[in-house]
């Protein structure tokens, strides 16, 4: 029987909830084509799987344990070996720099092509999967079909958590099997020498895990310098409300809200943002929200998990200091 594989990276919590949209889409394709489906969870020493959480998700998984990190080269080789003689017809990833790299490497190993950043799919009249992707800067939509399998596709999907459709899985207590990476033979040709944290003003907000956002209450461009320190301390990126963008305190590509971008980070820190409905629509899917605003009646406090009714100029530097102290303590331990 033909098989659809979904390759997902284990989240820092040890589960696969961040990829629920990808899992659901792959399940949808498998059901429509009458194929079986399988989920491959990539686990690394820094992101180990929580088997209980995986079983709870109700999806049958194979955990691919990468002992020495999941570099694209090594991971593609491991997936290729894991696939072995399986009748693999389609491999689905959620698009990211990491996933696109792995997908293209896997496609090269399988002597096929990869389609990256697809937006959706449909069934053709002949009953084949046709993948749709935006091209020419979003001006046109291209429909693509693979001449011969296997098809390697990455989908540009959001990370908003939705219930995972259980499809053909066995229910609440799903099977979790482990497969160890056999070797790391390619290290001599390609070697990672380390990863450095980027500038919070260079990372895109679309997929950010942690966002520090400022609004009218920040008072000026120099206020965003204070927020930048917090973003650096948290390892996050920066965003702004429409007012902050209109006043050119921060770039338009960083605007959150109905006329900007919709974000769904794990942590959203709103500083000096009143919380108009237009802004809230852009950040309502955040896992956790901290609001810092001197106005006790500001609507942003209503959607916050933790409220601080004080001036950001006082709280943010103190918070940055506390974060550095926390890191230093952890390093000593």
């Amino acid at each position, binding site marked *: 029987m033909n098989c659809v594989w979904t390759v997902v990276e284990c989240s*820092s919590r040890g589960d696969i909830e961040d990829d629920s949209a990808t899992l659901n889409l792959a399940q949808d394709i498998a059901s429509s084509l009458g194929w079986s489906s399988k989920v491959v969870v990539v686990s690394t020493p820094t992101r180990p799987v929580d088997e209980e959480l995986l079983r709870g998700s109700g999806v049958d998984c194979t955990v691919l344990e990468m002992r020495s990190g999941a570099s694209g080269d090594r991971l593609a080789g491991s997936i290729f070996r894991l696939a072995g003689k399986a009748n693999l017809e389609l491999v689905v990833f959620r698009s990211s720099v990491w996933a696109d790299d792995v997908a293209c490497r896997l496609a090269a190993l399988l002597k096929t*092509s990869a389609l990256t950043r697809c937006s959706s799919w449909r069934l053709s009249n002949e009953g084949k999967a046709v993948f749709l992707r935006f091209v020419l800067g979003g001006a046109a939509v291209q*429909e693509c079909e*693979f001449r011969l399998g296997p098809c390697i596709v990455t989908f540009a999907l959001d990370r908003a958590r939705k219930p995972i459709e259980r499809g053909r899985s066995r229910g609440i207590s799903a099977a979790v099997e482990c497969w160890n990476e056999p070797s790391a033979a390619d290290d001599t040709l390609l070697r*990672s020498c380390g*990863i450095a944290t980027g500038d919070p003003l260079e990372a895109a907000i679309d*997929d950010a895990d942690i966002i520090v956002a400022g609004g009218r209450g920040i008072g000026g461009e120099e206020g965003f310098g204070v927020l930048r320190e917090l973003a650096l301390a948290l390892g996050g990126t920066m965003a702004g409300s429409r007012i902050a963008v209109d006043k050119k305190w921060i770039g338009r590509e960083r605007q959150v809200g109905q006329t900007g971008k919709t974000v769904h980070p794990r942590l959203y820190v709103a500083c000096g943002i009143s919380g108009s409905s237009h802004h809230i*629509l852009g950040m309502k899917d955040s896992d956790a929200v901290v609001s810092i605003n001197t106005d006790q009646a500001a609507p942003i406090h209503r959607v916050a*998990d933790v409220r601080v009714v004080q001036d950001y100029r006082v709280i943010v530097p103190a918070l940055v*200091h506390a974060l550095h102290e926390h890191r230093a303590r952890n390093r000593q331990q």
Partner: protein
Amino acid sequence: MKVCTLVRPGLPEDATVRIIDSGRLDFSGASPVATRSDLSALELALTWREREEVYTVVSCAIGDETIDDLLHLALSMGADEVVRVSAPCSYGNPELTAAAFARVVQDSGAQVVLCGHECDFDSTGMLAYSIAARLQWPVVTGIVEVEHRPGELRVLRRLEQGALETVAVRLPAVVAVCESVAAARYVGRAALARARRQPVPVWTMAASEAAGGIRGVESMGMTYARPLPADIDAPDEGLPALERLEHVISAGVGAREGRLLEGEPEEISARLVGVIGEWLGW
């Protein structure tokens, strides 16, 4: 040492692209220009040659004579050799482009392949991987900085969240760069006119050779992208006016726990670090 670069055609910024009945792109009114990230790759190779780290820079384009101008541009920028592969390759087919380009690299004896990560007609980013697979070389993509060291390259690769990964790649290697890796030099009209007087060597690739063993992707057609409908949140008409007003003000988002932290800034910060640590699993 030889470096091989690829110059692919792209569309000028003001080009009008139409989709004709068959679902194919019609850009007949626009003359192709060189892809900017490919020119950045060429610029990087030329910088290495000026520092005497490499000796020869070869530039290659694939297509018919309409793209000779791209190779004239490469010559005027300073490329030592150019070659056009006359292959039945359609714009945006990375497999056919890779097959033709890999042959040029093998024939030229180059040790480094430099090209742009993506181009207008192929935004999958697959090309560099396909070339590397054919040459059996290591490949790195999305590169923003390259340092040439004896026997290897040290490259800086942009990841998510603005993070940068340093990767060491043993030579020979395929490197796909971003436009920001180097700004292509300005070429004057006189240099371009001189380059145009030079003949462009043409190497013909048989259709069977180009298509051999390729399983890739086929474009079924194009449609204009329709704007997505805005996410409109409207209250239920049956609700009382006050509740509808509340719904509009809150954008339909339910209130959260809203735990209030009070006290001195240091005290609040310490508690905030604890709460954030719990959320993020520190």
